[in-house]
């Protein structure tokens, strides 16, 4: 495992490269983390997934979006276009590091939505896995707002949280508009060989995604529902082990 900075000088991104533990396959996988509070609580699940994928013989790369984690910048200056560019750089970095041509992406929550936007915009991927994705940015932002309202109610005193902040993050109007503009149901076909959607339960949005998301061959996503609690769901503090295993198996199956 190797931590490193990559990307343009002054706008460097932080990443962790995990080489294959078992006999190396020809593929690589970039893991895309979620945003704001889910980034922190989903970290361990992505680290577990990285470990499993490396044991499957894949080259794995995790990274922080611009303005998040250890990457350069502040979140209020970021937007979805910038993050799509980050993902393209991460895929290129993994290809250079590992000498692989086939790279897949697994995105957790809104990380998956960004990956879908990037793939729809021309980023070439082997597999694209959307892990518990929101249907779009509008839904996602509303969920964050609801969480924020509850958090403010839980505080034992008059809050000093600024009006532009959500859950302690300064989400600029430009960033909010950018997030809200993401609609997975309205994307052009993704430049991926296969699409997967993994979720803990079937909801109406998954039916919509099944009908609208398309891979490069015009096929819809493989939908998989594994009833498990996950840390990023309210009130839960668990790593969804079966889902992680299922994602690792799915991605490894195409990289033989």
């Amino acid at each position, binding site marked *: 495992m*190797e*931590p490193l900075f990559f990307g343009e000088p002054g706008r460097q991104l932080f990443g962790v490269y995990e080489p294959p533990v078992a006999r190396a396959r020809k593929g690589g996988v970039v893991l895309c983390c979620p945003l704001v509070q889910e980034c922190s609580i989903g970290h361990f699940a992505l680290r577990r997934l990285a470990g499993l994928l490396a044991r499957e013989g894949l080259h794995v790369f995790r990274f922080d979006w611009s303005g998040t984690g250890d990457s350069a910048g502040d979140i209020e200056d970021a937007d979805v276009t910038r993050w799509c560019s980050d993902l393209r750089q991460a895929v290129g970095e993994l290809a250079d590091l590992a000498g692989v041509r086939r790279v897949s992406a697994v995105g957790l929550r809104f990380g998956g939505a960004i990956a879908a936007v990037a793939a729809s915009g021309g980023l070439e991927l082997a597999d694209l896995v959307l892990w518990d994705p929101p249907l779009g940015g509008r839904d996602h932002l509303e969920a964050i707002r609801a969480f924020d309202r509850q958090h403010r109610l839980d505080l034992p005193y008059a809050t*000093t949280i*600024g009006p532009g902040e959500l859950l302690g993050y300064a989400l600029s109007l430009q960033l909010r508009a950018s997030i809200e503009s993401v609609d997975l149901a309205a994307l052009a076909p993704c430049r991926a060989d296969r699409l997967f959607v993994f979720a803990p339960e079937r909801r109406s949005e998954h039916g919509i995604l099944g009908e609208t998301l398309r891979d490069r061959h015009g096929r819809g996503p493989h939908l998989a529902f594994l009833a498990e609690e996950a840390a990023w769901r309210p009130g839960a503090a668990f790593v969804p082990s079966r889902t992680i295993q299922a994602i690792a198996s799915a991605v490894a199956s195409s990289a033989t």
Partner: protein
Amino acid sequence: MKETALRFGSERHLVGVLAEPEGGAPADRPALLLFNQGFGQRVGPHRINVELARHLAACGFASLRFDLSGLGDSGPRAFPPNEAERAVADVVDAMDLLHRRRGIERFALLGMCSGVDVGHASALADPRIVAAAFMDGYAYKTLGYHLWKLGQRLRRNSSWLPLLRGVRRLAARLRRQRAASGAGGAGGEGFFERRYPTREQFRDDVAALRGRGVRLFFIFSHGWWYFNHLGQFAEMLGERRLPQGIEVEYWTTADHMLTAVRERERLVRRITQWLFACVPARQPDSRREDAA
């Protein structure tokens, strides 16, 4: 400002980011060590450690933010077998790394939430630590704490009934505390246990650190249940006034996670000021050397 991603430690199991000024930090400035709180990552709640590290680098200080064994991106550590000792060994590894790479010999640290346990134990264990700051650190409910709380209730209620109830509850609590003398302030419940030092032990530890000349800075937020007024800290130490070398602040508008951007900016500002105060005054001779 430049940042370097590092993998280090006796078992190369630790992951961290060194932030420093472009030309390196002046030798007389302590480097700040930042690490996890609870199960969080090295970046800290709402990325506070990143904001702090970058600001400090711009002000001429080096810092290393890193994940302790088994947390964030860091791998597990086999030895020592005790979790608390493992964390201290990780901090020692971090200092050894900065000494090897940059020749740094003096360190400060910031422990937040349960990171306080690691910071407190490390400061006691290693004389290279010359300054330690704690956000929502150890606190003990004193008589003053209970009276303060009672007073607040009185201000909210015009009736004497709550006062009488409060006095009864306080008396019962003090009886329980006497019966369980030696028990600490806050402990954990369930699988996340914290071993709080007893109040007496805490006093001895603070005295030992002061005896070594370690500068101490304690910040308490309004969200920390065991602390409710500024005077409580001196009372915890059995003193009338705050001893020299110790700074204490009580932030009534901050919560435990420093959720508001304004409170995080305040932490960055105050820790930077405090670190500047930790830089020893230059000797006349060295000034002459500089002038030469």
